[in-house]
């Protein structure tokens, strides 16, 4: 395949980490390296034969302790388009706390000589625990409310693609910040690349001292709507009502939901983003989700290129200066 010829940041940056656990640990250069690598993989999915031999002979395991369709499928297709063999394991994390632990499962997989572990777990930090105990590279596909690095990377990639830059943009992340791994990873990624980030939601859904992560806090949608270049909406979970975090989904929609009327107050050309799946009629009206400002499906498409890039980089060989195909 043809690698992009001009690669300013990655001329100096090289991937040296065993794992991709979060964006907190990455430098701006490392994030740019991933975005540029993804750029070079993007067109593979547009070919009639959507496959390159970059990871031929490698085995990738999707080890999901929490159910997922979208992220799992995206990783699976990314691995397949790089010619890796992929195994999907859906383990219920509930049965793991008793008896066999996640570490036992991983030790077994290591004995089977797999090359990359893609891990999703309901507990924050579970991929970190595993990564410390195995030589196999680990990619975090979402851990509790902690991080979801590939989601934030595909969000950065999409913003870069649509706006031509990230630095200097105003990004509002709206919704359940407290329980969102997508929000945390995006806060790290966006601030490292120079965007100005405001998190927005009712006080019950904003975690304490979040300002110290370098973001601003707004409790009313009106405070961010007119200024934001990007509106990133988070899925509001039905369970939040049971824990008294919001009175009702209806109340949430009335104060924070984006519909056409609200959108009219937004900046022209605002990007509407959502990690999916959308709760239609709660955080986002159908008309807006499918409207001209929505880049939700571009996010999904870009997710493939990002996950190909991440699989490729953590696989270690060939390195960035070698042609993968």
């Amino acid at each position, binding site marked *: 395949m043809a690698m992009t010829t001009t690669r300013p940041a990655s001329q100096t940056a090289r991937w040296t980490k065993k794992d991709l656990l979060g964006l907190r640990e990455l430098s701006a250069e490392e994030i740019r390296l991933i975005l540029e690598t993804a750029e070079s993989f993007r067109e593979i999915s547009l070919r009639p034969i959507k496959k390159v031999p970059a990871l031929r002979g490698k085995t990738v395991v999707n080890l999901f302790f929490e159910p997922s369709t979208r992220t799992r499928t995206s990783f699976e297709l990314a691995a397949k388009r790089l010619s890796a063999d992929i195994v999907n394991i859906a383990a219920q994390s509930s049965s793991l706390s008793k008896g066999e632990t*996640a570490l036992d499962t991983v030790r077994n997989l290591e004995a089977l000589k797999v090359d990359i572990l893609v891990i999703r777990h309901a507990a924050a930090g579970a991929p970190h625990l595993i990564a410390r105990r195995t030589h196999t590279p680990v990619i975090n596909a979402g851990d509790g409310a902690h991080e979801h690095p590939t989601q934030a990377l595909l969000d950065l990639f999409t913003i870069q693609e649509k706006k031509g830059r990230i630095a200097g943009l105003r990004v509002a992340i709206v919704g359940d910040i407290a329980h969102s791994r997508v929000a945390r990873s995006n806060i790290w990624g966006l601030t490292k690349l120079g965007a100005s980030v405001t998190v927005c939601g009712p006080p019950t859904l904003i975690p304490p*001292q979040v300002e110290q992560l370098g973001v601003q806090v707004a409790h009313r949608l009106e405070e961010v709507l007119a200024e934001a270049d990007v509106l990133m909406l988070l899925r509001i979970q039905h369970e939040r009502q049971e824990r008294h975090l919001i009175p009702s989904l209806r109340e949430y929609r009335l104060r924070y939901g984006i519909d056409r009327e609200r959108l009219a107050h937004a900046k022209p050309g605002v990007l509407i983003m959502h990690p999916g799946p959308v709760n239609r009629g709660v955080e986002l009206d159908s008309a807006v989700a499918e409207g001209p400002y929505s880049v939700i499906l571009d996010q999904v498409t870009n997710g493939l290129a990002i996950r190909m890039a991440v699989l490729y980089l953590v696989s270690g060989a060939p390195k960035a200066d070698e042609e993968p195909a």
Partner: protein
Amino acid sequence: MVKLLIKGGRVVDPASRRDGRFDVLIDKGLVADVQPSIPGNGAKVIDASNMIVVPGLVDLHTHLRQPGREDQETIESGCRAALAGGFTTVCAMPNTTPAMDQRGIVDLVHQEVLRLGLADVRPIGAITKGREGKELTDFGELFDAGCVALSDDGSSVADAFLMRRALEYATLFGRPLIQHAEDPALAADGVMHEGLVSTTLGLRGMPAEAESVMVARDLALAELTGGWIHFAHLSSAKSVELIRQAKRRGVRVTCEVTPHHLALTEDAVEGFKTDAKVNPPLRTEQDRLGLLEGLRDGTIDCIATDHAPHTDWEKEADFDAAPFGISGLETALAVCATTLVTPGRLSWPQLIEKLALNPAKLIGSPAGTLRPGVEADLTIIDPAATWTVDPARFVSKGRHSPFAGRTLTGAVVRVLRHGSEVEA
């Protein structure tokens, strides 16, 4: 039985207001004399120059796990860990399986302690049957069996009505009820302190108010009933302030703090370190400073370890799944010496008051002093020795410590129990 003469050490015995160079003569297992210079006269001499000689330390808060979880700790391994840490008396917490809620289980512990002849173990019975917070245990029977206090530790007594009655009824016995102060609804299912680190790591937090709300409630109930409330392992500055005010009003309240809450903050959890997962959680620097101030001004009476051993497989899990608790007996003295004495926050006599005299008084034990006539439970400390914590070398079965790899100052060199040297 040969006499023992401990020569030339710095004797720190707050009960007799002694802090200076003294010789200690031990005869028939008792402290026979403490004088600036005692002639040998055929006694076996232990040279204690450059050492500190203190009464055997007394831990108000030890989880020995037996009966029930002998894979985590046994009375034997726990007593040996206590001695290794300089403790000659430990209070055994009742969250065993079954819970220490009736005489038979207390007797079982006593029998084993007698058989071992290691440390002195004073059981703490449960306040409610099965520690379920529903029905009171038979307080009288438990105190008659030798319990020194009652507690549902591990859980709070959440029901205010039941706690009121418990405090009221306990006035019959003049013994304290020990509350693990935590409002379960406010703590929700938190796994660490609610603050910047929980926000960063995406872990569920417990606010400091989960503790202080319960402290405020129980202070009011103690005031109402005249009962004696003792708060276990305080973690927040707000709780300290509430207790300070209550003590001024004359409420019958005592409290303790752990070495780890005095030395560490929520930052110790960074990297999802389950070795720093404790309940109550490690909180902020401001809370830590509040605890230090409470210790200094006398609001906090005792330092207690909350030694809570767990197995490797339990602790080496993801942060949500790992149990609360760390192994504390073998690091307590050195952590306190390093955190409190070296920087000049407490003097050695003040530290020994918190680690021996006050807890002994609180449980009604004659220990905690080196006054002539008492049983010679005694610890010799090298205050200048530095060592690096390696949990793999712990005597306890619990090998998890947030101090792993830290270099501490102050080491226990010898421990005497009833005048005989004991080895962990």
